[in-house]
């Protein structure tokens, strides 16, 4: 589904990703772990199409298509979803209006009919229960005045509604207490299907107690330096990132 080959990228003259390779197949959950500054958020931003990054070398293929050639909205319509580390507050844009517009853009792209207000409401009500969101949630402006936990739940709620093929969760666990973390993880797990994939980006192993990855990668200084099963996350938690830097030479 996603194939990243020898990706070199940076921002403002600084090299961040230095030859990153990553392959994710449908039905898989991958975790990318790494210390601060290793390039985790850059990776997420580049996949989603945020502006301002220089791609110096390499390619990113999504279902065989050149992802880097696509506008962010095109990627989203093709099924790429980024759960933001810092969801943006948009006062004045009603949540229902926003999410219905997004869903209908994606449906249109897939040749499906657009949902009217009633159809949309019955769809989202069901999904809101999964994330334990309050009824008035949809009437509020997007993320405006939300607590950190509410914002993260809103990201996963949007993911539940938009049903992406490839979801990237960028530090979704940061700022969440353990109860919110469980709700979010449960939401993510319920969305797992044989035809979609998830990429969980995190600093800590904590989230991976609840979202069980098939593959864990360690990102260090712009490259995947180690890949393994879910045990790798535990090992990393135990030994710390220093352990990796000492074994930096070990190729992925």
């Amino acid at each position, binding site marked *: 589904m996603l194939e990243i080959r020898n990706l070199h990228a940076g921002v403002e003259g600084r090299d961040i990703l230095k030859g990153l390779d990553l392959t994710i197949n449908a039905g898989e959950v991958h975790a990318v772990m790494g210390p601060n500054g290793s390039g985790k958020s850059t990776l997420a931003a580049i996949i989603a199409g945020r502006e301002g990054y220089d791609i110096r070398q390499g390619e990113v293929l999504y279902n065989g298509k050149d992802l880097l050639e696509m506008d962010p909205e095109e990627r989203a319509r093709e099924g790429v979803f980024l759960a933001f580390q810092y969801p943006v507050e948009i*006062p004045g844009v009603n949540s229902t209006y926003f999410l219905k517009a997004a869903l209908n853009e994606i449906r249109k792209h897939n040749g499906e009919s657009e949902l009217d207000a009633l159809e949309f409401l019955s769809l989202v009500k069901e999904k809101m229960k999964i994330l334990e969101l309050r009824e008035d949630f949809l009437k509020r402006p997007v993320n405006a005045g939300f607590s950190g936990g509410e914002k993260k739940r809103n990201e996963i709620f*949007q993911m539940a509604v938009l049903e992406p093929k490839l979801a990237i969760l960028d530090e979704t666990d940061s700022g969440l207490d353990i109860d919110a973390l469980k709700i979010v993880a449960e939401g993510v797990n319920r969305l797992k299907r044989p035809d979609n994939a998830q990429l969980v980006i995190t600093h800590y192993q904590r989230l991976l107690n609840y979202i069980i990855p098939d593959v864990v990668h360690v990102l260090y200084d712009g490259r995947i330096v180690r890949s393994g099963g879910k045990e790798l996350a535990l090992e990393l938690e135990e030994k710390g990132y220093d352990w990796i830097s000492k074994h930096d030479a070990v190729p992925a």
Partner: protein
Amino acid sequence: METTTIAPEQMKEADPYIAAFDRFERNDPAWLTSLRERGMAGFAELGFPTTRDEDWRFTNVAPIAKLPFQPVTEPSATTVPLKQFNFMALECTRLVFIDGYFAPKLSTILPQPKGVRITNLAAVLSDGEPLVQKHLGRYARVDANPFIGLNTAYFQDGAFLYVSAGQVVEKPVHLLFLSTSEERGSASHPRNLIVAERDSRLTVIESHVSTVQGEYFTNAVTEFVIGEHAVVEHCKFQDESPLAYHMATQQMNLSKQADFISHSFATGAKLSRNNIYTHLGGEHIECVLNGLYLTKDDQLADHYMIVEHASPHCNSHEYFNGILDDRSKGVFHGRILVRPIAQKTDAKQTNKNLLLSDNATANAKPQLEIYADDVKCTHGATVGQLNKDSIFYLRARGIGLETARRMLIHSFAGEIIDRIRCEAVREELDQVIWDRLEENPHVGSK
């Protein structure tokens, strides 16, 4: 009348106004004659402001000063089809004024509870209503800006709204000020007095519109006297002719525990300035001043306000957003004045400007003057383009760039509109502003 001295450069422009006042014959009671004289003296003293005056630095009113002096002596029309205007479908009490004169045939006054009086000011002046003498001109100070004095000297009519203690005016009261004169410089000076006694409730819509593309001048003054624990919402909609000049002053005197919210929407006029003066004269007052200006071509929209905290434990908030296009200009001047007695004041102010064109300008001038030591006062002003993070967030959900831009521009207006409490008014303004933005080719395409 009293003798006055004015600066030579201002004399020429103010002259016709002063000379005409001597010939201005009316059957006013003595107290009103003296009030008018004080108004004229105040105007003569200050003259038309220039950009050398700090409070008028960004707003040049020379075009108003240069207009021929044309006070409207009678309305040019007595019946006008009103359907074309906003709020006409609203179930409400409506007072219509044409060129500053009351139009009884076009007005509707719904039955009101005892103790509520809704009529035109000229009517209560002629029947000697003591409340008018008690309140009129007591709050809007002629030295606050020259246009207050000018209005006081020349006003013909306006609204008189009185809600006695504990009474609730259920439906909004719509004051519609309509200009119909095509004569250049034709001027009207509407004057409103609104008294809401303790525990009363009132919603007032004040709209300024026209049937002509005229270079006329509106100079309105509204005084609000708001009693203890009264809840008042005021919504001003300035949608004058694109060639018109609009000056307005609202003076609000609030008593303890009053809950007051005011909205100022400025979409029309070539040059407009809305002066809002609030005096928080009792504890635990909630005061919100909220506003939106949309400008294009070479329009200028200025909002000037002074929030005076003269008592402890009051909260005030100002939220003003501007969407500026073409060569237009938006001005925001917000002064928060906290008197030494006003401990535990919580005063916040934000002014955000969105520029849709490289040639548009926004001038923001926050001013905090704090004489008490235990207060929370914050202000923030921004000028710029749409937020890149917000655009990316929407695009990352599948929403196209143009739609994302349009959504964010609407949201910029929407966050102001959302504060209107009266649902029917909010929905109507939401639609109006939406349509105005959609008409703009720069919304969504830049």
